[in-house]
């Protein structure tokens, strides 16, 4: 099991696609934080709009902004493409049969493959989120905003977690 996951990492790690995908994710995050956030905040004279822009990069709102952003989730479609492409190439390369004649069941082989792909996708998404949070910290410092999870008159951290939750799935409130 562990070995086949390792093999999966070896196979994926030497393709271009995951790196390009990750760069696109980071680019999306940069656009959100810097362009829609920092630049919009600096340029906008309108107070309302400025506050909206501020909330895309200032802590703690940046967390929900990054998770909630359509562009961020849009990249998940990319992830789906990545997953299906690795699956499809596996079949067209005829490598699954090679595994079967080595005594693996088709289901077990594909399951470990799916697990490996899931791990890679999760790592890429979390990595991009981490980069986004770093960007936000940088942008906040540049804009002279505090870097804190607590907001005066705002929701507490646990409440914030709850408000971020629905964006992860279709959980009822």
């Amino acid at each position, binding site marked *: 099991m562990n070995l086949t996951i390792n093999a999966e990492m070896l196979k994926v790690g030497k393709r271009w696609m995951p790196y390009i995908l990750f760069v696109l994710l980071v680019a999306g995050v940069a656009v959100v934080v810097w362009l829609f956030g920092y630049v919009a905040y600096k340029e906008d004279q309108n107070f309302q709009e400025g506050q909206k822009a501020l909330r895309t990069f200032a802590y703690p709102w940046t967390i929900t902004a990054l998770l909630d952003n359509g562009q961020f989730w849009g990249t998940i479609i990319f992830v789906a493409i990545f997953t299906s492409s690795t699956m499809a190439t596996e079949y067209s390369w*005829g490598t699954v049969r090679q595994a079967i004649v080595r*005594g693996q069941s088709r289901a077990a082989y594909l399951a470990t493959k799916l697990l490996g792909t899931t791990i890679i996708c999760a790592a890429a998404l979390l990595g991009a989120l981490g980069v986004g949070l770093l960007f936000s910290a940088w942008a906040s410092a540049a804009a002279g905003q505090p870097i804190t999870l607590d907001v005066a008159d705002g929701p507490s951290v646990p409440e914030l977690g709850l408000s971020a939750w629905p964006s992860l799935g279709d959980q009822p409130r």
Partner: protein
Amino acid sequence: MHNSEVPVLKTSRLSKRFGKRLALAEVDLEIRPGRVYGFLGPNGAGKTTAISLILGLLSPTGGHVELFGLDTRNHLSECLRRTGAVLEGVSFYPHLSGRDNLRVCAAISGGGCESRIGEVLELVGLTARARDKERGYSLGMRQRLAVAAALLHDPELLVLDEPTNGLDPAGMRDFRELVRRLAGAGKTVFISSHLLNEVEQMCDDVGIIKEGHVIAEGPVAEMVHQADVMEMTVTNADAALEVLSQIDWVGLVTRDGSDRLSVEAPRARAAELSRALAENQVYLSELRPRETTLEDFFLEVTSPEDKR
């Protein structure tokens, strides 16, 4: 190491039907340890089907397969652990190097054979190109990489489905040498092919399959020298006929020309034959055994229905 009584591979009345088409009809094969067995037949004869059944990639319509004396219906994983296979149309990951592809194969095999990668690369002669991406390999190199992958877990039996398809003559020669080397190392090799001279040069035994039926099976040497017939050119054919008719171990004698005869007699007694003729003042200007080549045999058994 091997119990020579137990065939490494044995099929019993193995049959496979695809819808209405009978691809394999009650095939009985038996491969002895340490032999190179050629499974010879024209395209569409059922070779790949038989190999898929042997390796459990397909399930038979009837009959069963035994590997190492174990029924694959109950012991498939143990059987596959001791078998290496090169399948038709199986390829590698083009973006990985030869060595990395073997790493992937080692992981799939359950580990423990990672340490053999260098050894099998050496065996198939790919050490120098092991760091290059598979994408840049020639067909012959790919086939050798496939054999390396099949050898990783040190199997007793190798099953190769048309491994020399598409190779140039030099590639074929290298491959033949590789197979002979493996046989020399005690492996049993089952190799399918539609090329007769390839089987003739590389295999100890041959099974000929046509339209799903195995129509002949036996050692290559026996099929090549099937009949003990000698051709001779003599000084006096009439006298020779007279002399030969007196010898009780001489069978049928036929006259091929004014001074040429075909004589059915054991090849080992050729010297005796020429002495008997000389004692009667009949002299030989030529005496040679007639070789029925495997090709003659193959054409004979496969041609009638091929001429459509």
